[in-house]
């Protein structure tokens, strides 16, 4: 079956800046993807390319088997909620929720009403009088209640407090369980969403660095903690992603360990702990940058 998204050698240049640089990947149906990366890494540009809002410099994009640019058949199955999404100034939230169902065939009004209550969103206030967080919650509600087969959230929660963000994650997971669909979520708050994600795409400086199943990625590295001498003896020539130490103690992040290696470590009196997705991505992107600099 055709992947929901198929991207081949995609590039987008703005003058001399390569916002997206020779990126290829596929997105499978009904999975939650995390699109992670630093500010200016090219996340938004990539999402704009995927939704036909931006025009590619080279390469191809296919959504549901067809190119997205100006393709109503494909685009009506998408919903793209941007960071600091703008709304017509004189609109009130209720105008947004009145118009959104015209555009989304799967819109669920009951679900929308529940989310409005969850986020305590005032419906009658003008958009320009809303707080940053309230504005973000409008986008989150539209993105969830639209139930678009392919939903993009680009940093959707600017200004949302921790409670509201948790509501977003919970509702997304619940609704996704009953109405599976493809979600692409771009964010800085990697640890917060790490349990949500099934697949991780990491983009840095326009290049795709990591394209991996979230589970595999989480097993890619382990923290080894113990007496410095024991740790050093254990790691030997292994690739070290990160190294920390206080006095005689040492904490080292190493690439994935096999079962027998884990047993050896325990036998040597070392403590093993998983590395958070955020930590891992920070370290992996750092390493890749170093390698890149070394080879340059």
């Amino acid at each position, binding site marked *: 079956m055709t992947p929901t998204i198929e991207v081949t050698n995609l590039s987008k240049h703005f003058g001399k800046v390569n916002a997206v640089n020779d990126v290829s990947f596929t997105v499978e149906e009904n999975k939650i993807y995390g699109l992670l990366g630093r500010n200016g890494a090219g996340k938004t540009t990539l999402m704009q390319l995927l939704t036909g809002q931006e025009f590619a410099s080279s390469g191809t994009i296919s959504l549901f088997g067809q190119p997205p640019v100006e393709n*109503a058949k494909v685009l009506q199955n998408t*919903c793209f909620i941007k960071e600091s999404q703008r*709304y017509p100034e004189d609109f009130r939230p209720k105008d947004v929720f009145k*118009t*959104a169902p015209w555009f989304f065939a799967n819109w669920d009004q009951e679900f929308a009403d529940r989310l409005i209550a969850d986020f305590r969103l005032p419906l009658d206030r003008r958009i320009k009088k809303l707080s940053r967080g309230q504005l973000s919650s409008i986008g989150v509600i539209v993105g969830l209640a639209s139930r678009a087969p392919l939903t993009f959230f680009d940093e959707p929660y600017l200004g949302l407090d921790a409670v509201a963000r948790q509501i977003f994650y919970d509702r997304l997971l619940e609704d996704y369980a009953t109405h599976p669909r493809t979600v692409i979520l771009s964010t800085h708050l990697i640890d917060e969403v790490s349990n949500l994600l099934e697949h991780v795409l990491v983009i840095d400086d326009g290049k795709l660095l990591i394209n991996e199943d979230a589970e595999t990625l989480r097993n890619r590295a382990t923290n080894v903690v113990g007496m410095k001498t024991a740790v050093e003896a254990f790691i030997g020539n292994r690739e070290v992603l990160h190294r920390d130490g206080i006095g005689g103690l040492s904490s080292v992040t190493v690439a994935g360990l096999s079962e027998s290696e884990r047993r050896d470590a325990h036998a040597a009196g070392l403590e093993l702990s998983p590395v958070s997705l955020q930590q891992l991505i920070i370290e992996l992107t750092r390493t890749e940058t170093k390698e890149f600099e070394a080879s340059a």
Partner: protein
Amino acid sequence: MTTTTTALAQPASPLKRITRVTKLHFANPWTTLGLPWIILGVIFAGSLTIWWLIYSALSPEQREGALEGTEFGGSSFFIFIYMMVVAIQAISITFPFALGYGVTRRDYYLGSALAFIALAVIYTTGLTVLGAIEKATNGWGMGGTMFAPIYFGESAPERIFVTFVLFLFFLFFGSAIAAVWVRWKATGVTMFFIIVGALLVGLIALTTFTDSWAAVGSTLVDLGVLGVAAWSLVLTAISGFAGFVLLRRATPRNAA
């Protein structure tokens, strides 16, 4: 718990895709329909007051024809300029919004164009009705003119045509400016007006150096109000087409 895989939507009919954008422009009618009529009402109330002051200060013999000059007044002109502003606002604000909803640029533009034609019809109807009342009441009982000034033509059908065509021109000229704004922001709009200004100055210079002001004048007189209005349709069409071409390659951006 039932699990229903989110099915791909049946493609909406092209007409539906276009008309839902049209409806979007009227979802909150404050900017497009509310505010303009309120401002027009305020101007009208102000004019009535002034007319009444003049009227009541004059003796009955002097009243005859005292407000004749208002035939050349331009107090309802604002509404045309304001429609240009409405078009610019409507596009620059709903364009990024609609594209996030998965609307294509083509459907967006056609739906917006339909909304602008609807606005032209609504405002023409309004001005025509008010103009008819004005004529029927002999200028609101005082011989004043606001809604049916001399430049809109002499008969009702003429006024309807001229008003409608003028609304179309300002709305579509506005949509062209909006498309420039959406694509190139302030730099683009500045360049646009420099180019339009240069063209106008060029035309004036050409007319002056070829000594053809008299010819231009007589042509305009020959064309009459109706002819000039009909020719504006050419500019309207160019604006409308330019707006479409520009917007089709535009990308919604957040920053102003």
